[in-house]
């Protein structure tokens, strides 16, 4: 049983790490701001999510009882992250940062 | 148990809070509250002085925790004296401010009260970190006060003052950190004890801490090369504020003397010597500053610096006998400089546009009385007989037999004569046409008189004054009593 949990926890931890890294790679690698904007969403969702689930499992297992308060972190992130993304997008459009070529559609004038 | 000792901190604090609660800008009410609190402070401080005078230490354990674990307030003659001095200075200053200067900006009275709270706290506390906290209280309040009113010059001076002191606060924290890191405690008395038995490695760090403390206190006390902020700040502040600030430099000196007297252990002699020389340099440069001043306010500010130099040199000269006259001189210079700042304010008002700049200007309404007051103030501050300044100086000269000190002190006197005779004759005699300014109001004059009158009084009862000073000095010379009182018999 314990080993199973341990495996699970480790797995989630790794998932978190990997996705966070991917997100940041995206942030570093993608050509223009609008595409980079997509990076963090991964970090927020699966990146942190992985870690959260891991710790959730871990502590529930440690304390032999359900430990859900980490969920709140995710809740807050889900509430707040889109807002910052949205505001940043607006900022970018106001500055009308250059888009990678082949981008369809137009950003709006702010 | 008696809670008198904490009253000097709480009274102004509560008054300040009430003033804060009073949101509807009812000025009469605000003034009344402020003055009431100042009067109360005066009364309380008299009680405290009288309580401290039998030479016993009163230790107040905040939160009822034993020193060195909790914070303690310690009342001895020195702290009592300083609290009294503050109250005596604050009341007239506030009276003066309440004649209209307090309306030149927001929250004046609140800030004033908190300023007093900070000063008193700094005088009373027996804990180094608590000292830091109260320094911050009085500083932040003083920032607000220094910037009270408008004008680019004032803002510039204020900015310099603030930035320098923020850096100073950083240094203070570093010094405290080192002291804690080496002695493992923060209570002054306990530090003094622990400092006796420091491991070899730590003595250096500890002495660094002490030297940094000197720097910080020197910054507050306006010691060369850290006084450059002072003249502009004081000269540009509202008169009442400048008058109150006359005590601020003395807070630095107080802290210096307190620590010097208490922590006798491994303070490197270089520290003391450095203070001695810096004090002398300060004295010398202040003379030049006073000579070169182009405004009365600036001149007075330099006189403040002069007194600081005089005092710090005297304290660090290493003559136990010099302590008493130095303390006497400290009180005298604080009061008289305060008076002169107020006077400068009156002169500036009286001359309208020209202000207190030392150029020919319109005749001052009621200039006769002002000139008389100025004459008295000048005599006192320069140290000419028969007023308190002379007595203080003679005392210092007799107890600090160092040729260079004598030379500088006498030259300082001469510079004072030249500068102030020039200032006085220009302001009051060299008049062009009729006055554009305002006649000094009765209450303003009262404020000035209150302070000025103390100089002749201190001269007339000079013996008593010196005796008191001697008593204070006597207590300072034996830190053991302090330590005993704070840590209980168990110490050493």
């Amino acid at each position, binding site marked *: 049983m314990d080993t199973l949990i341990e495996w699970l926890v480790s797995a989630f931890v790794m998932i978190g790490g990997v996705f966070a890294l991917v997100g940041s790679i995206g942030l570093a690698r993608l050509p223009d701001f609008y595409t980079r904007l997509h990076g963090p969403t991964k970090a927020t969702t699966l990146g942190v999510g992985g870690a959260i689930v891991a710790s959730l499992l871990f502590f529930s297992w440690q304390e032999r009882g359900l430990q859900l308060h980490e969920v709140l972190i995710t809740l807050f992130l889900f*509430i707040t992250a889109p*807002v910052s993304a949205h*505001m940043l997008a607006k900022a970018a459009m*106001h*500055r009308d940062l250059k888009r990678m070529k082949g981008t369809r559609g137009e950003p709006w004038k*702010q | *148990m008696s*809670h008198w000792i904490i009253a000097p901190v*709480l009274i102004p604090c509560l008054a300040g*809070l009430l003033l*804060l*609660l009073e949101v509807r800008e009812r000025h009469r009410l605000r003034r009344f509250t402020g003055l009431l609190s100042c009067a109360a402070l005066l009364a309380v401080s008299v009680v405290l002085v009288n309580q401290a005078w039998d030479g016993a230490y009163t230790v*107040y354990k*905040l*939160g*009822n*925790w034993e020193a060195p*674990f*909790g914070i303690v307030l310690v009342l001895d003659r020195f702290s009592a004296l300083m609290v009294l001095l503050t109250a005596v200075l604050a009341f007239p200053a506030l009276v003066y401010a309440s004649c209209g200067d307090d309306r030149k900006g*927001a*929250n004046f009275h609140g*800030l004033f009260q908190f300023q007093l709270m900070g000063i008193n706290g700094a005088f009373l506390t027996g804990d180094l970190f608590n000292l830091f906290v109260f320094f*911050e*209280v009085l500083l*932040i*309040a003083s*920032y*607000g006060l220094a*910037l009270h009113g408008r004008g680019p010059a004032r803002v*510039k001076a204020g900015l310099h003052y603030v930035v*320098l002191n923020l850096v100073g606060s950083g*240094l203070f924290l570093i010094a405290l950190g080192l002291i804690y*890191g080496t*002695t*493992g405690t923060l209570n002054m008395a*306990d530090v003094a004890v622990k400092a006796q038995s420091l491991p070899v*490695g*730590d003595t*250096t*760090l500890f002495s*660094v801490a002490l*030297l940094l403390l000197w720097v910080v206190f020197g910054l507050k006390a306006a010691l060369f*090369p*850290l006084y*450059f902020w002072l003249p502009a700040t004081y000269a540009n502040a509202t008169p009442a504020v400048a008058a109150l600030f006359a005590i601020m430099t003395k807070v630095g000196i107080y802290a210096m003397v307190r620590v010097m007297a208490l922590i006798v252990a491994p303070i490197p002699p270089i520290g003391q010597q450095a203070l001695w020389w810096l004090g002398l340099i300060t004295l010398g440069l202040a003379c*030049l500053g006073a*000579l*070169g001043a182009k405004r009365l306010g600036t001149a007075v500010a330099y006189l403040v610096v002069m007194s600081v130099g005089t005092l710090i040199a005297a304290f660090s000269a290493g003559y136990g006998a010099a302590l008493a006259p130095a303390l006497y001189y400290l009180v005298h210079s604080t009061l008289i400089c305060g008076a002169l700042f107020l006077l400068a304010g009156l002169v500036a008002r009286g001359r309208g546009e020209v202000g207190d700049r030392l150029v020919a200007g319109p005749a001052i309404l009621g200039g006769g009385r002002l000139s008389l007051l100025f004459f008295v103030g000048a005599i006192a501050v320069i140290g000419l*007989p*028969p007023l308190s300044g002379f007595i203080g100086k003679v005392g210092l*000269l*007799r107890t600090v037999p160092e040729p260079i000190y004598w030379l500088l002190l006498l030259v300082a*006197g001469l510079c004072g*004569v030249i500068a102030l005779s020039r200032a006085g004759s220009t302001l009051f*005699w*060299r008049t062009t046409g009729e006055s554009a300014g305002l006649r000094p109001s009765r209450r303003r004059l009262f404020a000035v008189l209150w302070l000025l009158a103390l100089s002749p009084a201190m001269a007339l009862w*000079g*013996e008593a004054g010196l*005796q008191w000073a*001697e008593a204070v000095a006597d207590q300072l010379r034996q830190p053991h009593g302090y330590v005993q009182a704070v840590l209980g018999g168990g110490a050493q």
Partner: protein
Amino acid sequence: MNLAFVVMLPFLGAFLPPLVERFTGNRTLLACGAALLPATALALLYAPTRQVFAGETLHSTLNWIPSLDLSLDFRLDGLALLFALLVLGIGLLVILYARYYLSAKEKAGRFYAYLLLFMGAMLGVVTSDNLLLLVVFWELTSLSSFLLIGFWGHQTGARKGARMAMTVTGMGGLALLAGVLLIGGVVGSFSLQTVLESGDLIRGSEWYPLILCLVLLGVFTKSAQFPFHFWLPHAMAAPTPVSAYLHSATMVKAGVFLMARLYPALAGTDLWFELVSLAGMLTLLWGAFAALFQHDLKGLLAYSTISHLGLITLLFGLNSEMAAVAAVFHIINHATFKASLFMAAGIIDHETGTRDMRRINGLWKYMPYTAVLAMVASAAMAGVPLLNGFLSKEMFFAETLDSHQLGALSWILPVGATLGGVFSVAYSARFIHDVFFNGEPVNLPKYPPHEPPRYMKVPVEILVALCVAVGVFPAITVAGLLAVAATATLGGNLPEYHLSIWHGFNLPLIMSFVATAGGVLVYTQRRRLFALRSRVPDIDAKLVFEGQVQRLGRWSAAITQRFQNGSLQSYVAWLIALVAVVLLTQLGKLPALSLDVEMLPMDGVAILCTAMLVAGALLTTILHRHRMTSIMSLSVVGLMVSLLFVRFSAPDLALTQLSVEVVTMLLLMLAMYFLPVRTKAESSSIRVLRDMLLALVCGVGVAVMAFLVMTGETSTISQFFMDNSKSGGGGTNVVNVILVDFRGFDTFGEITVLGIAAMGIYALLKDLELRSAKYDSLGRPWAKDAHPLILVTISRPLLPLALLIAVYIFLRGHNLPGGGFVAGLITSVALVLQYVASGVAWVHSRMPGDYHPVVALGVLLAGLTGIGSWAFGYPFLTSDFAYIYWPVVGKFELATAMLFDTGVFLTVVGATLLMLANLGKLSLLDDKREDA
């Protein structure tokens, strides 16, 4: 009767005239009021005078400041008596004279007040029996003379003269003070008696030269001896009564008085002889010479005064007792004739409206009576037989003759003396001839002049009468007084001498003849001399002195500027440099520090975090001109620091740091709206280098110290906190318990600071006018969408959630990381978010906008919690707690600390919002100005 009382009388009198003036404009009454007290004093002196003549010395003593050995001791011996009589007597006459001299519109009351002030000071000088006390009065004479010279302060001459006199004599006074203190140090007391008795001790001590120089500095400045004589002529800007009183009869005599007083203590050495007699001789000659060329009536008299003072000084310098007697005698004579001369000059000035001798001629026709008086007086000055001046001058010549201290060069003295005599005769002659004869007056302002009012002449008459009386019957008039005075001066043994008009046909007499003849000759040749003199450009001491003072002022201003250049950068640099010096000097003593001490193991994560923090800090520094980027990297640092706190088991700090971060960021963003976003490089590379160096020294120093402390071992008091936190503080989170309990007073102060800061900020922002940028940094207009829908709608549900968290953090604070401060910050951030999302107007329509009361309530709550413990007889801030059991709910804790923490919470919320909200309002004001 008490001497002190006599001395104090004039001081008391000083208050009288202004009072009288208040009630009556009658000048005579005023004068009487002023004269009253000196008159009384004089009367009171009658009895003592007899005692003194009987050879006693009266003492009166009154303690003032024993610990400084400064006491109000007075003595009345011959010398003191002589001077007291001079001061009071001439004082009376001067007051009488001034009654007519001062015009109706002048503030006579003030004048008399000053005059009496001076009189008292002078009396004090001559009668004080304590050297320190003497110095006190000495300085007072300078001060009162300053006031009197500056009486016509609206005239530039008066101001400058007054300042000059004050400066010179003030300097002398300080020197004298030093000298006296040294004497006190040598003798061990300031009591005059002791000092006079221990003359040999003083003369023997190593300090003697210094003492002598200092004292003589005082003397020479006061008595206008060369090279300090220059101030006296300019003191003539004072009203003539003053000149007559202070600058001829009394004050300037204070110097020579002091020489007389300390004669037994200081005189009798070669040094004394050299200094004093040399100065005296030079002064004598120069004064007499210069007097001849003055065109100003008072100028002539002033220089003659100088030369006569020189004469007296010279006499004292001769180290012979006879000379001293002569000196004292001449003091008396000079006082009488010079005072009368000044008064006469005043009358002439008063009647003709000018003092220029080139215009005043032939007054004999217009005011013969005055003329006679003046002529007699000046004859006395010239030393014409049958007048007092003659007697003392004869003695003077005699003395110069039998002084042999210069050995082979002894002839210099008599020759010099004669030369002086020649000139004095010459200028006396000029005074008489030029003024009263020598043709017709040249366009006088007042024409025709006539005799002054009757009573204005009375003082002159009295004095002139004295001159004659003394001159004819010395033995019965002055002998007694002189005897006692001289005795007192010499301290006993009086030499054999007799005052008489005829000593037989001897050398001094010849010298007198030579002098007179020479004088007349010189005067007849004056045209040529004047021509010669006019070739030499005459230097106006006033201008020179003022110039020097001005230069001094400029110079010191320049020096001050050097340090006080009004540049914050240099001030901070000084501060840092000082710290650097401390660090370098101290840390130099440390042994080379080794890294092989046991430390916590490093790991990759930590190293990388450190790297990032360092990078962030450096970026902030390097990019500080690209401000937004700099801010970004700053918050990286902030984040890393908070993580550092997490890493080293300080969750409370982490929480606080994080929330402070956010608020600081908001603050900076608010500010950046009004500040430029980037600036060009300004500092010179030199300065950059200097600053880097300073910074490095500090950084390295601090780092080294930190490392040493961290790796060292110190036992701290903290174990106590661990042990008592639960039992005594009722909480398990020790940090929090320390904050709210053990060191609650710190926290109390800390929240007060926060509150004050908010107040101060509010005050600063009140009616602050700032121009906000209308375009962004790229120069394009701002976006239109002020309140983005999503931000608005999401931020609202966040508020209750944040509050919930705040409550949670707050409640657990006492036992687990958290507490009022963090809770407060969370709350305020959530509220500020509302401001950001929906705008000030929107929020304030739903919430009170003034946060002053919140702050106040917060601190008040904390404070009252503290005061509450008084009720139970405990000191301020003593905490208490209890565990309460409720059904269902279970056991929970109530602690006063919680109340205190609530105070913290409120203060934080109030202060933060007070700052941010008002900062946010700025732009609104700006918009209003736009609209207006």
